[in-house]
């Protein structure tokens, strides 16, 4: 046991380490495989329908060939705009509060509720929005859809903001206070400003996350075969259009759905790439 024990334990440790490395590599490959498959499948099925008319045209009635998703793309852009206009200020403000009042009781409650909200199934958010925003006015609307998406977005932005602000060194806060900055000015012009690249990343990730949400839109934005930019009218969205085409019995519509899915994925991919790019410039400062 005495002389040989260490050598054997080294060998065992090496073997165990090799197995663990192998397992994690396998897991990493498994984790990315679905994305690669999905991308390949979408390109195979949808690329043929991706033409100019797809981006500029409107949906055609059954039986007519061609047609595009211009209204759905505009609708998605508008829904994202509404969601961001509501979700970003609320989420960033809440995150700032959580980070600046770390140990307060209210902070604890807000943090907990925000986690719960984050875990809420999106269909529940959709029903909630329908109950309070659609039913009372008896009208599906872009606004209701945007608000439902904002509700999905807020907890993501809140936690991202909080985490980014926590990374700002306390010494910066102190330096600002020592200069005679009031607390609010310290928070806004020094702390928030320093954390901004990280917050932008968090916001983009949140936008990418909600861009493809379908369930919250089913009973709120509802979908629309026509062009609409009205806040108070039903509005089309890429995921909704994909959904209704995909469950239709027509080949033609199926391939349009594939193409729509491809565009949606590309959108998410681009937003994620931008988020990556912004992240890289985060906290370039050389001190701790």
């Amino acid at each position, binding site marked *: 046991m005495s002389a040989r024990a260490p050598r054997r334990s080294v060998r065992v440790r090496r073997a165990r380490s090799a197995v663990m490395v192998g397992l994690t590599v396998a897991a990493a490959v498994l984790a990315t495989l679905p994305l690669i498959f999905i991308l390949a499948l979408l390109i195979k099925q949808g690329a043929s329908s991706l033409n100019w008319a797809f981006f500029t045209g409107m949906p055609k009635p059954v039986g007519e060939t061609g047609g595009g998703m211009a209204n759905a793309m505009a609708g998605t852009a508008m829904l994202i705009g509404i969601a961001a206009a509501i979700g970003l200020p609320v989420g960033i403000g809440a995150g700032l509060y959580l980070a600046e009042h770390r140990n307060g009781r209210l902070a604890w409650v807000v943090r907990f509720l925000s986690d719960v909200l984050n875990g809420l199934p999106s269909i529940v958010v959709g029903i909630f929005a329908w109950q309070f925003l659609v039913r009372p006015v008896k009208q599906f609307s872009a606004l209701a859809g945007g608000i439902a998406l904002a509700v999905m977005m807020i907890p993501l932005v809140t936690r991202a903001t909080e985490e980014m602000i926590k990374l700002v060194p306390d010494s910066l806060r*102190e330096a600002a206070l020592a200069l005679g900055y009031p607390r609010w*000015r310290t928070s806004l012009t020094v702390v928030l400003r320093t954390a901004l690249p990280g917050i932008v990343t968090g916001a983009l990730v949140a936008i990418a996350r909600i861009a493809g949400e379908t369930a919250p839109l089913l009973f709120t934005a509802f979908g629309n075969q026509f062009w609409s930019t009205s806040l108070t009218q039903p509005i089309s969205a890429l995921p909704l259009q994909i959904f209704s085409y995909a469950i239709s019995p027509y080949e033609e519509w199926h391939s349009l759905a594939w193409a729509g899915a491809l565009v949606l994925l590309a959108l998410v991919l681009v937003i994620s790439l931008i988020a990556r790019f912004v992240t890289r410039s985060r906290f370039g*400062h050389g001190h701790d």
Partner: protein
Amino acid sequence: MATTEPRVLTTVSGVASAGDAPPARPMVAVRSLDAYFGANRAVKDVSLEFPEGQVTAIIGPSGCGKSTLLRCINRMHETVSLARVEGEVFLDGRDIYARDVNPIEVRKQIGMVFQRPTPFPTMSIRDNVIAGFRAAGRGAPSRAEQFEIAEWALQRAALWDEVKDRLHESALALSGGQQQRLCIARALATRPRVLLLDEPTASLDPISTQKVEELVYELRGDITIVIVTHNMQQAARVSDHTAFMLLGDLVEMAPTSRMFTSPGDERTEAYITGRFG
């Protein structure tokens, strides 16, 4: 009012009797000050005075309350949660812990430089220097005047020649020593009457350290300076008076030359001769 009764309280050894430093009125007078972190009493019944236009060094072993004492002078101590202050601190005769005093106004009149450089990472070099004016509100000088002041402050901080061609670059592009001098320039720009330096050269190389020391020496007369340092030679070089603290107590305060040649308390002697701490 309080300005006229300084020397009575002048600490253990008595600054007033100093042979080498001319008697000066106290710019900052600390009276029976206690500072707490929760139940931990970090500064214990400290009374001392910082004479106008002179440099006072605070020395003592790690954890003895030097930074805490310093941070009570510009009301920064209370920004830490559970931190509390008892006693009085007079700034030019006015009790800064009086009820009607706004801590923000106190901090604007007192500059502070920390152990590690704290440039604002999102601001340019010049914007860092004039950052203090952002808090000044309507009383702030015009933009053009601020730029002139920035040049003046950078020159005082012995940084101007190194940065004059890149004032718009990020402050993070500077070396650690340059960043620290930038922070000193930032503290000087608003023309504070008192400058608090908490181990300003602790993270600097010898050359940058020397520049900061020269700066401190030059600023004497204009500004009242309090400098915390672990470096005895530094205290001896730059200060007129030295205060020695131990476990939250002020052991003694004396003219620097006397402190380092014939300290009044044997604990002081033990510390400065390196027998502990």
